[in-house]
């Protein structure tokens, strides 16, 4: 596979949008899927489908093995220590809710502090807000500066002996800021504070070695990694999972069930109640193959080239204001235009087949801080090219014409 021609692996690019070829710059929202992933899902349903972990007939055995093989594959891909540290969830949102619920229930009490940043996606804030409400805990926010960066020293200062957990994003889905998570984790480890990384925007772009990173939790959205909808992954150190109470109750996660008591299966089964998303998990296996065949470093390099080209070109456009200017940035450019609201930009761009996102991107706290209610966001995936950026920039200029600016 050649990264220059990789669009041809993605069926979505065969169609026209509003008569124009699709220029998809919304991968931070959800990535498109390569043919191999789509075909694997169909093929699984057509020839191998059965419920996992329940029956002993041939199809069930096959499906169960396929499912569990993907756990091993994800473990290897993330370099986790144990296969039991990989939990399949509905998405990164569920992964973070699981941790917040279980950790909150067991380890957070009145007055305890949860440390996070102003950069976070609602999915890495609202679950902690629930804990705050239930336990009377306090959420502290490390502030973000105009560049979109968070100061390490401030984080250090905010850590107290009441800090029970640090929850922080790997890459901001708005400013693209790559957070110095390794340093934060090291800092936290000195004080024995566990760290959750919202890796939703990290995993699709950056090579991960979770044993080296040594975070306690890492949440992933498979659908942003060229994988299927409706699937996420919680990586968690085994010691936490072993201590955590189960999250949802139901079939598959039990050990013994009596009228007066229930005991639970061991990790990871304890956290996978009910019928799992077997087809999605099996399909995700192909997404990992896709990434591994190209090489995540090569994907990263390619995306960075497009990103830099885009930032330079947009910087030269006087009507465009790029949101944030972090030293380390990954695959996202958010911007505003004087006199044209992001929502209108998105609509005008769409006429040219250019798909971007407008709004607060589930980061209202960040937008409030910056005194702005919405931004337009172009985000980059493996299939984007410099031409996509050129089309984006032409279309941005058209916005000015439509608005007589």
């Amino acid at each position, binding site marked *: 596979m050649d990264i220059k021609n990789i669009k041809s692996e993605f069926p979505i690019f065969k169609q026209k949008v509003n008569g124009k070829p699709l220029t998809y710059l919304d991968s931070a929202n959800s990535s498109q899927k390569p043919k191999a992933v789509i075909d694997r899902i169909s093929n699984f349903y057509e020839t191998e489908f059965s419920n996992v972990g329940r029956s002993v007939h041939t199809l069930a055995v096959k499906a169960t093995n396929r499912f569990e093989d993907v756990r091993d594959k994800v473990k290897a891909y993330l370099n986790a220590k144990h296969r039991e540290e990989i939990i399949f969830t509905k998405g990164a949102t569920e992964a973070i809710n699981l941790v917040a619920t279980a950790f909150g229930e067991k380890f957070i009490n009145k007055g305890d502090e949860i440390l996070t940043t102003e950069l976070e996606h609602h999915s890495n804030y609202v679950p902690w807000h629930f804990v705050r409400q239930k336990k009377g805990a306090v959420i502290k926010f490390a502030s973000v500066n105009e560049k979109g960066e968070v100061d390490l020293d401030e984080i250090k200062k905010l850590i107290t002996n009441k800090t029970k957990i640090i929850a922080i994003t790997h890459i901001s889905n708005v400013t693209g800021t790559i957070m110095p998570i390794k340093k934060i984790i090291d800092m936290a480890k000195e004080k024995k504070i566990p760290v959750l990384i919202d890796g939703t925007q990290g995993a699709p772009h950056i090579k991960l070695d979770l044993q080296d990173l040594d975070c306690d939790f890492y949440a992933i959205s498979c659908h942003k990694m060229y994988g299927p909808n409706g699937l996420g992954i919680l990586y968690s150190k085994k010691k936490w999972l072993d201590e955590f109470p189960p999250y949802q109750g139901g079939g598959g996660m039990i050990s013994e069930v009596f009228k007066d008591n229930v005991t639970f299966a061991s990790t990871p089964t304890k956290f996978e109640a009910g019928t799992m998303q077997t087809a999605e998990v099996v399909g995700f296996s192909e997404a990992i193959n896709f990434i591994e065949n190209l090489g995540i470093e090569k994907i990263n390099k390619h995306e960075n080239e497009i990103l830099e080209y885009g930032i330079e070109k947009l910087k030269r456009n006087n009507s465009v204001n790029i949101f944030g200017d972090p030293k380390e940035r990954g695959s996202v450019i958010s911007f505003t235009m004087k*006199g*044209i*609201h*992001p*929502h*209108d930009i998105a*609509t*005008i761009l769409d*006429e040219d087949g250019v798909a971007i996102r*407008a*709004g*607060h991107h589930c980061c*209202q706290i960040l*937008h409030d801080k910056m005194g702005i*209610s*919405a931004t337009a966001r172009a985000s980059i995936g493996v299939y984007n090219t410099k031409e996509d950026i050129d089309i984006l920039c032409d279309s941005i200029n058209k916005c000015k014409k*439509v*608005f*007589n600016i």
Partner: protein
Amino acid sequence: MELKQLYQEIILDHAKNPRNKGKCKDYNHDAKAHNPLCGDKVHIYLNLDKDKNIKGLSFEGEGCAISLASASILTDTLKGRDITFTKNITNNFLNMLKNKSKISLNSLSEDQITTINSLSGVQEFPMRIKCATMAWHALLSAIEKKN
């Protein structure tokens, strides 16, 4: 080209120079609305006299051209009207966007009808309908609510 339909001169004019912005004098009803997906916000202020006439009508808000123009047009059209008429035209307006009908109330001037109908281009942009209707929904709840 549909974009021209959406961003008509009238709309751009109202968006850039929104009428009746701010809190109107002695407002005694108000209501907010917002769209959590894009952050658009509107706050409608209403001075309703005891005969149910709208003596004052204004808005505060931020958002896209469509939502600003819609709020501006709303205030411009309904100031001085009574409540029955207001509810009537609001329903007509919401209906226009939902069912792609046109507005033609004979108590409105031609100018006013042209202005309101300029928002009908939104029909073709389903994700923008909320932008256009938000202020009108806020108006309805402001009428219901006492300050």
